[in-house]
């Protein structure tokens, strides 16, 4: 039974990101993995090896798409070519849901290829929610928006990040990809309580969780995805699963990528906490069994 109406994939289990250095291992050894998350942009190409590899992966595994350049929070309208290519990929992968970030990163058609923080205001929330609805209606697939790590805050912000997240997802009526590492990183950088964040998000909308490693510098923490997950992040994860119920979980490891087995073993550590959540008493209102949106 789904933990909530945005999470019809409770039993998706624990996935890892599909990354180039692991292609040969995966295709030759066919390891058992619950699911792979792909970066949509890497496969929004017109032909060649990326799509050949993807098709072979799709024959054997469940794949969920994760994007990095839709920029729901950008003032720009979604680019038509981008949406067309993304839709073609959605049809190819049959992704059960699609995620991208609650951030901006392009203006007037120039791309930073970064996940830049939002100003937390009502007008920005309204604009962002409109864009999420537009993308969802075009792609015809449920959307989960992911909270990003941030290193700066704007004077114009009128609410906390989690209040902004709630405002956006309720207006868009979409799901959340809750990145507990990003919550931890931002909490360190901005001095808020990460548990207050967890308590503040609408738990009944969390459809997926990300865990990842980060790097501490002298004056700030950077979201680097080049380490195992650190203890405080696992603790947050455990708390998140208690609040949200059993949720599809994914480990992100994007830089200095070790062997496939090392990444997979790290991801599987999450199972200890998922087990805890399974046994935990999730309040009835978080157990609504309505079908997922669309």
């Amino acid at each position, binding site marked *: 039974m789904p933990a909530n109406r945005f999470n019809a994939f409770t039993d998706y289990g624990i996935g890892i990101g599909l990354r180039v250095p692991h292609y040969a291992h995966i295709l030759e050894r066919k390891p058992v993995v619950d699911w792979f998350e792909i970066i949509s942009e890497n496969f929004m*190409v017109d032909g060649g090896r990326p799509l050949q590899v993807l098709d072979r992966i799709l024959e054997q595994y469940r794949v969920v798409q994760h994007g990095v350049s839709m920029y729901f929070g950008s003032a720009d309208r979604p680019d038509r070519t981008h949406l067309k290519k993304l839709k073609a990929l959605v049809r190819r992968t049959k992704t059960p849901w699609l995620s991208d970030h609650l951030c901006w990163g392009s203006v007037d058609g120039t791309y*930073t290829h970064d996940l830049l923080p939002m100003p937390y205001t009502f007008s920005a929330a309204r604009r962002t929610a409109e864009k999420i609805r537009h993308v969802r209606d075009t792609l015809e697939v449920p959307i989960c928006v992911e909270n990003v790590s941030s290193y700066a*805050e704007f004077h114009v912000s009128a609410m906390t990040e989690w209040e902004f997240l709630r405002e956006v997802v309720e207006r868009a009526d979409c799901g959340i990809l809750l990145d507990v590492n990003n919550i931890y990183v931002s909490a360190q950088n901005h001095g808020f309580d990460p548990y207050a964040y967890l308590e503040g998000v609408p738990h009944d909308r969390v459809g997926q969780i990300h865990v990842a490693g980060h790097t501490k510098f002298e004056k700030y923490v950077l979201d680097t995805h080049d380490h195992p997950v650190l203890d405080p992040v696992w603790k947050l994860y455990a708390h998140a699963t208690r609040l949200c119920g059993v949720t599809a979980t994914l480990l992100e490891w994007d830089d200095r990528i070790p062997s496939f087995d090392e990444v997979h073993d790290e991801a599987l550590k999450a199972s200890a906490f998922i087990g805890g959540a399974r046994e935990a008493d999730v309040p009835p209102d978080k157990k609504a069994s309505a079908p997922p949106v669309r």
Partner: protein
Amino acid sequence: MPLGFKPPPRRAPRGLKSDADLRALQRLMLHALVQPLTAADGLQPRWRDGRPMAEVAAEFIKPNGRLTPFERLQIYARCYWFRIIDCAYDDCPGLRAVLGEKKFSALVRAYLTKYPSRSFTLRNLCSRLPRFIREEPRWTAPRTALAHAVARFEWAQTVAFDGEARPVLTADDLADIPPAKLRLALQPYVSLLRLDWPVDDYVLAVKRRNALRGEASHAVDHGPRAASRKRVPRPRRGRVFIVVHRYNERLYYKRVDAAAFKILEKLAAGGTLAQAAGVAGRGVTPEQVHAWFETWMELGWFCRS
């Protein structure tokens, strides 16, 4: 101002009431990020209007107990630049070897300052690099022509790697069309390069050397390997005709004769089969042209125009 840019607002918006305010704030931050970094990889100390950058940053970014608004903005500026420089670095091993690391870094920074990314994917980041090398030869002098050739070759590899493939033309498709009417198009992923250096051999040698270096740096004993340390000598001038393509989803470079190249060029420019065969010149027999076509058909280079 970089191409495609709209000017930033003179002052940061004080509140965010409309979509226009959101766009103004985002334009302001984008302009701050895409300015070239200083020699020490920091944010420029002055804004475009002469005001201290610290003052501009403080207009829209909050400080925290450890970092000023300027420092917080600088984190993003560095992330932006390091990410795109890394990407260009990975895409252009040959150009890096031609210019050396320092000169390559200066070229890439200048290029990305003038031509920031206009695509949702980093795949296209270096698409305009050959053009930029021509436009601003000072970054690559005195090896501008070689740098241009290598940059074209490296971009052609990106195109061959994941460019579009249209349905391949088969002999049956062509059977009933007379050569005077038949037009063939080259697959979009195929590039024809007439170059003044054997850039294919050179880039291959550089990649091999880099791979050896990679192995050496991962080796447990860290023993020096003379072969992996040596620079690959720059290529000697010599005209080559290269077709960059893929076969069974793998990347290939195929050298062809001058006459064969002319035929392919003519077809790519929209000429009929009869016109293309006519440019081969006297020294080429019809049997030779026939044999070439057979190979090209087998490689799947043609699609309907």
